[in-house]
């Protein structure tokens, strides 16, 4: 069993560290506003970070099983294609996730 007092302590510490990281740019806002490089970064970073989160999550998923990263490649390509042409986020996510679950569980299905 995990001691609840210890658990609360861990949660408070993790919460404080996370909040401090998220608040740091806003606390330093006055300084950051003087630097045009920071403003330009705000336009450059979102696409870069979203790409990184996508690739990092897909790589993490691919490492969680044996047999190569094919389900991840195929499912991500499917989602990207659906979203690019269809523009329905929910449909893209549902179909992509459905296809991924099928591929990952194909061996276990009683066919």
């Amino acid at each position, binding site marked *: *069993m*995990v001691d*609840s007092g*210890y*658990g*609360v302590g*861990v*949660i*408070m*510490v*993790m*919460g404080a*560290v*996370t*909040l401090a990281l*998220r*608040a*740091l*740019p*806003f606390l330093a806002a006055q300084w950051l506003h003087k630097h*045009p*490089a*920071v*403003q*330009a*970064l*705000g*336009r*450059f*970073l979102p*696409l*870069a*970070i*979203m*790409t*990184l*989160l*996508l*690739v*990092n999550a*897909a*790589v993490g*998923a691919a490492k969680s*099983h044996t047999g190569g990263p094919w*389900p*991840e490649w195929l*499912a*991500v390509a499917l989602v990207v294609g659906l*979203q*690019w042409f269809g523009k329905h*986020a*929910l449909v893209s*996510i549902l179909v*992509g*996730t459905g296809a*991924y*679950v099928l*591929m*990952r*569980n194909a061996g276990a299905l009683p066919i």
Partner: protein
Amino acid sequence: MSQDPPSSATPAASRLSVLALTAPVAMGYIPLGTVFGFLFVQAGAAWWLAILASVVVFAGAAQYMMIPMITAGLSLGSIALATLIVNLRHVFYGLSLLNKLPSGRWQRAYLVFGLTDETYSVLTTLPAGTPQRQMVLVALLNQGWWVLGTAVGAVIGAQAQVTLVGLDFALIALFAVLAVEQWRGRQTGAPLWVALAAYGVALAVAPQHALMLAIVFSIAAGIFWQARAPELRRG
């Protein structure tokens, strides 16, 4: 409130679009939250601790990382350091939102607290002039989905049987959808190519810290890029 840009959206329309914006997040957060709550309780913690973690910490990757650490009984200092490393990327999220967040004290504070990967990506997708209340609602709903999923997973506990693997792909699909939308609205494609190249190198050099290294490299490249493209500096 005097800084509020004029908004043409009717309340009903904006409520609809808030739901549409957070629906994909819900698709990722509810199953992922459920898995977190389930695993956390399985690891031997009380159900209410799982919910408390999702209310107070509200950071997916860090919370997943928390499960083996709390089972091993690591010191608070080690856990703080690990959280710092895993969540360091959040420092850079605020940079691109400095002028977008509400001016109201509590609304601003809550949005800063709730700046997860997904909330960040939805907020950066919102058009300029989005009402403050709508931004806060997006963040609140997103945390609501996460806490709801956690509660379901924690309460089901040992009774649940996870037979399908890969349901958490919903979160990867969400990142893919948001990357496509960022790409559609791009000024330049450079951030994507820089990110891919940086991640490739980082993965080869230090797989454990690939995300963090690639983010740092992307920031450096972003500074270099804006110095080379002065016409993009202002409007």
